[in-house]
C-alpha cells in the first residue's frame, strides 16, 4: 500500500500498477489537478505545503478506515508538495476491489477524507493575489473537520 507525500511528479501508472492482482476486477482512480480558476478568479500556480510525517500517518489512517468501512485493502495514494503549475497532478488515488461498488466508494472516501484530516495546505497565487485555501479546520476535541474560511496573506 502506497501512502506518500512527494515533491516529484505523481505517476498514476505506478499507483495503479501497485494494485495489480488477478482477483481485482474493478479499479477506480481519482486525479486532482491544478485548475486555472478557483472561486471565479484566475489562478497562475499553487504551492502545496505539508507536515510530511503526520500527513503520511494520517493517510495510513484513511487507508485503515477504508478497509474497515468498505473491505478494500488495495489502495495507493500520493500527494505532491512544492510549487505546482496549472495541469500538474496534486493528488492521485487508486483503489481496487473485486467489484466496482467498493472500488468507487473507497476512492471517493479517500479523497474526501484526505481533504479533511491530512495536514496539507494549499497557497493559491492568482489574479487577485495570494491566499491560503483553508477547507477544513480540524476540531481539536473531536479531531473531526469543520468548515473554515480562506486567509488572504
Amino acid at each position, binding site marked *: 500500500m502506497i501512502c506518500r507525500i512527494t515533491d516529484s511528479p505523481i505517476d498514476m501508472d505506478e499507483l495503479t500498477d501497485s494494485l495489480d492482482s488477478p482477483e481485482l476486477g474493478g479499479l477506480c482512480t481519482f486525479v*486532482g*489537478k*491544478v*485548475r486555472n480558476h478557483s472561486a471565479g478568479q484566475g489562478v497562475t500556480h499553487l504551492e502545496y*505545503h*505539508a*507536515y510530511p*510525517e*503526520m500527513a503520511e*500517518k*494520517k493517510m495510513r489512517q484513511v487507508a485503515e478506515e477504508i478497509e474497515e468501512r468498505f473491505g478494500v485493502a488495495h489502495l495507493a495514494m500520493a*500527494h505532491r508538495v512544492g510549487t505546482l503549475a496549472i495541469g500538474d497532478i*496534486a*493528488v492521485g488515488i487508486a483503489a481496487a476491489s473485486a467489484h466496482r461498488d467498493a472500488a468507487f466508494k473507497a476512492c471517493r472516501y479517500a*479523497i474526501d477524507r*484526505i*481533504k*479533511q*484530516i*491530512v*495536514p*496539507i*495546505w*494549499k*497557497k493559491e497565487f492568482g489574479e487577485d493575489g495570494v491566499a*491560503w*485555501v*483553508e*477547507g*477544513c*479546520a*480540524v*476540531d*481539536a*476535541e473531536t*479531531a473531526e*473537520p469543520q468548515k*473554515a*474560511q480562506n*486567509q488572504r*496573506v
Partner: protein
Amino acid sequence: MKIRVKCFAWAKEVTGEDEIDLEVPEGATVADLRESLAERFPVFSGRMESIAVSVNQEFAGEGTPVDAGDELGLIPPISGGCA
C-alpha cells in the same frame, strides 16, 4: 518548561519560524500551549478556534498533556487535494 512547537502554512508565515519555543507550566496541556501562544503572537487570538494542535502527530484536545519531549504542531485549516 520550554516546549518546541512546529508551525505550518499560515502559522509559519505569521510567526516567521518553522518552530517556536513557548514557555508553559509543568504539567501543561494544549490549553496552556494556546494561552502562551496567544500571548507571544497575538495574531493567533482572533482565530485560535480554527487552529488545531497536534501532539506526536495526532490531533489533540484541549486537555491533552504536552511535554518538552513531545512533537508539537500548529495545524491551520487544511486543504488537501484539489477540485
